[in-house]
């Protein structure tokens, strides 16, 4: 997770979007590699997330949250559509085949990230027993490291609702797999 907080909004003009992309590339790649162990799929999904962000850039509203939270919401939707097998119909020409942009160094780098994210993927898998609303909150907080407030912004819910779902998710998992509870107690920001 970047130590700086990305601030560039998802502007649709070339220069503005380029800065937004630069600030958020690592975060999106990390999000994707915590959910797939395929290098090519990681590249394709990363490209798809940013392409979707470009298409929806004008829908970003700073009053609703920070740019990164908005982007996490898009990333969740893109990956969910992919894994449901219900990706939006597109003319092939409009998509970016991310895997075609990879060279050997890129493949090695993404493989290293996928290896490093193994524990994160296992943690995410341990959340599979949860209902989707609870899992969505817990994944963003415990797996992706977002604050409760940022998670709420990404999901379009109130912070209070996010906190409630997080509490219920932790409680539910403690009841199913007590050993997982320890990782959930790792320091997490208590936000307003």
């Amino acid at each position, binding site marked *: 997770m970047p130590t700086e907080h990305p601030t560039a909004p998802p502007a649709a003009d070339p220069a503005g979007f*380029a800065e937004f992309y630069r600030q958020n590339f690592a975060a999106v790649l990390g999000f994707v590699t915590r959910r797939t162990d395929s290098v090519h799929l990681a590249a394709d999904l990363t490209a798809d997330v940013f392409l979707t962000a470009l298409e929806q850039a004008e829908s970003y509203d700073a009053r609703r949250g920070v740019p990164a939270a908005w982007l996490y919401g898009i990333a969740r939707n893109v990956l969910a559509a992919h894994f449901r097998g219900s990706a939006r119909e597109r003319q092939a020409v409009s998509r970016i085949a991310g895997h075609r942009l990879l060279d050997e160094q890129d493949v090695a780098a993404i493989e290293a990230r996928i290896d490093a994210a193994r524990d994160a993927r296992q943690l995410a898998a341990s959340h599979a027993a949860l209902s989707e609303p609870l899992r969505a909150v817990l994944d963003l907080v415990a797996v992706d490291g977002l604050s409760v407030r940022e998670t709420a912004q990404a999901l379009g819910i109130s912070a209070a609702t996010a906190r409630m779902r997080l509490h219920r998710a932790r409680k539910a998992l403690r009841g199913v797999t007590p050993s997982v509870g320890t990782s959930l107690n790792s320091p997490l920001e208590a936000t307003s």
Partner: protein
Amino acid sequence: MNAPVHTPADAVTPVNFERRLGEELTARAAARPVGTPVGTPVGMPVRVRSRRTRRIAVTSLGLAAAVTAVVVGTHAGGGHDAPEAVPGVSTPVAGPVTPAVRDAGYTVTVRPDHVVALKIVGTQLSGLQATLRRAGLPAVVMTPAASCVHKVTPVDTGRLTAVMSLDPKDGRVALLDPAAVPHGDSVLVVNESPAGARHASVGSLAVLLTRPAPSCFPASQVDVGEG
């Protein structure tokens, strides 16, 4: 944000992939027509909605005032340079831009970083819109009209401060950055000088971001000060 689970901070970056993807996205952003509806797939043919069906979002900045933003509803009236579709302006070369009329009351200069420097030197502002557009700004220049009727709602966006500032070396010069104008927005310049004014300055102008530009600006909305 907190650190995600077990992801090293020094993870290797696929630099070439990052660069190539960035180039591809930049190219697609550049190819995206003005006014493309939200959600339109990039690279797809675009049907642009008419102005009547598009909600107008307006932000404004008086040069000596706090940043605010307003929403403008349907409108009527005149008193302005005719708004027109922003032409596809290629990047202007740095240097002075010839005013559209003789004895113009302004100077417009494009700096090497493409920022447009606007200085008001007189009361004759005719042709300012065309001059600013040649300088690279998607500009619309208006004079407030008493016959113009608007419904105004304050909304905070904060984007205008990136578009406009005063030259720290010369407070009489307004600096307008075309690159900071959000895609699809127009820069609305409102001449708020009282009718018959013998002197004018860049402080007589109100600069707003609009999408699309309204066809008039209400006189009732002008923040008229003393003197």
